[in-house]
């Protein structure tokens, strides 16, 4: 019967069978896991999300969190913390990466060597080791809060982080200065050592990779562009800024997207140095409730959604602005 169909219909039929097979296998594993959990009377289901968390979170972005709030709110706080560090790291790593890529191609010998050393060093040392390094540097080399450094009025640098004054957004406008009392600074905003170490580690690590990609992009721009620009009398700086970089940066959008996604996923190493990101809080939740499968499913779902969203966005951008060499 199958032989009577034409080749396209046969291909479609095989794909339907394969899809059905994969779905069946997936369904079997999920049903099996649920049955086993029920049989051993291990709690399952997502009802735990609405229970009281019972633990505190070291720092949170935008929301305020207390131990009486739900696990769902705790995970939301974790997600916002992840966004905060990942977004800042992505932005800074792009800026630093472009600078590093340019530096490596510069005619200045010292600059080139420095940039090469930076790239080789940071690409080859595991990220978690770099994070431990930055964390140790910050906690061990800065003084205790009682003897904090005071570089500018209102700014205090200690091993508890950088305390900065904030301007209140309500009238009357008042500046909230951090003041040391008891154990810590109150008032103002404190950038914790965990956040700083994670941000520095991520930004510098990703910048090393982006630097190499940008360098490849610059080298990929047609030789003719250089010659045309020079014949017009443009200086090297103008050449780079007006002609080469605009083209190079549009070439490198797909590989840089990959690096952005890596950066976001690498932020999950926060648990090693104590920054309360999504994975760290989800791990605590898993251990307190014992529901490992649901917890891991939440983590996977969130990271998958973020990554797919960024990929989709960057691909749209790429389609609109990319330069095409040969095929579309």
């Amino acid at each position, binding site marked *: 019967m199958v032989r009577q169909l034409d080749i396209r219909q046969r291909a479609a039929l095989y794909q339907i069978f394969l899809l059905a097979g994969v779905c069946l296998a997936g369904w*079997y594993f999920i049903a099996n896991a649920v049955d086993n959990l029920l049989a051993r009377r291990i709690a399952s289901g997502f009802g735990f999300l609405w229970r009281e968390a*019972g*633990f505190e979170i070291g720092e949170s972005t935008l929301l305020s969190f207390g131990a009486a709030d739900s696990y769902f709110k705790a995970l939301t706080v974790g997600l916002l913390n992840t966004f905060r560090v990942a977004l800042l790291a992505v932005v800074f790593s792009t800026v630093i990466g472009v600078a590093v890529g340019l530096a490596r191609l510069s005619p200045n010998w010292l600059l080139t060597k420095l940039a090469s050393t930076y790239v080789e060093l940071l690409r080859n040392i595991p990220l978690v080791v770099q994070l431990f390094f930055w964390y140790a540097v910050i906690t061990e080399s800065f003084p205790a809060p009682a003897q904090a450094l005071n570089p500018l009025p209102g700014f205090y640098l200690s091993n508890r982080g950088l305390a900065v004054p904030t301007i209140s957004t309500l009238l009357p406008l008042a500046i909230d200065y951090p003041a040391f009392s008891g154990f*810590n600074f109150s008032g103002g905003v404190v950038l914790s050592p965990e956040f700083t170490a994670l941000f520095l580690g991520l930004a510098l690590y990703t910048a090393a990779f982006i630097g190499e990609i940008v360098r490849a992009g610059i080298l990929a721009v047609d030789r003719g562009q250089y010659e045309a620009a020079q014949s017009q009398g443009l200086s090297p700086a103008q050449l780079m800024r007006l002609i080469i970089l605009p083209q190079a940066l549009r070439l490198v959008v797909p590989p840089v997207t990959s690096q952005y996604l890596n950066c976001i996923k690498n932020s999950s190493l926060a648990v090693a140095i104590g920054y309360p990101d999504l994975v760290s809080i989800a*791990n605590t939740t898993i251990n*307190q*409730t*014992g529901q490992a499968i649901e917890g891991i499913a939440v983590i996977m779902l969130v990271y998958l959604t973020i990554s797919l969203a960024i990929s989709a966005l960057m691909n749209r951008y790429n389609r609109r602005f990319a330069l095409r060499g040969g095929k579309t």
Partner: protein
Amino acid sequence: MIQATKSSINTLLLILLLTTQANAGPTADSALKKGFIQCGVNTGLAGFAQPDSAGQWRGIDVDFCRAVAAALFGETKKNRYTPLTAQQRFTALQSGEVDILSRNTTWTFARDASLGLNFVGVNFYDGQGFMVTKKRHVKSAKQLDGAAICVQPGTTTELNLADYFRANNMKFKPVVIEKLEEVLNAYFAGRCDVYTTDVSGLIAARASRAANSGDHIILPEVISKEPFGPVVRHGDDHWFDIVRWTLFAMIEAEELGITSKNIDQQAQSSNPVIQRFLGTKGDFGKMLKLDNRWAFNIIKQVGNYGESFERNLTPLGLDRGMNRLWNKGGLMYAPPLR
């Protein structure tokens, strides 16, 4: 039709499993077949489970696993140790990766009721405390408002800490780091003002990491009950009985005055209680489907509870405290072996 397919696959797997001889519980059987017990222990906590400089595991939790092996096999060597972090420990036991979890695990309602696990008893009574540097001039935990506190994630420690501060209307900033070595690094570097964990852990950390023990004080407040005990899976009552009575045998031996040193003389004793315990009279071992000399093997090769405590925890500076026998002012009590 899907249901039928699923149940037929399940039946096939069940038949495969049943082809192995099942005369007692599944865990004991599989351990006998493997030839060893897989024991889940701490990754490295002085006094409880820590590899020494020769790579041998030492600690009271390790001693307990050796005791179960002695009861089951007659020799303590038939043990493999799986170091587990606080995050992995329950999943490892639930999934069958380890046979016993002997990992200074606090016995709580939620863990007993919702994880599909059973706690066999208590092998160490502890409580949670705080350690601060002397420079802070803090005399009581009630003065810790606003402090930065180092803690490991996913433990009862985190929950008790939040509860205590809420109950006393104080605020704190947790610094939550997963690995024990990194938490201690952060505390001793001054990243946080206070380190909190069970008092036994505080003493062990101070003994092993502090440059000068006098610089760190352990505050007098003990804010929670932390009864540690070995854990096994639901659904295997025979294994539960073996593990539970191993614990009781060690405690009972101390009460009867039987030690690993005098056990050979005690074996000649005419005291009927001791005769029953050591298997000279009666068939108590057979009731557990073990050799009648199961308790003799445990005490001869591992020692009684007091010996295990003195070997592992007394050198760290831990007093027996609540862990003395019931008739010496403590909480250690074993039901009679008869």
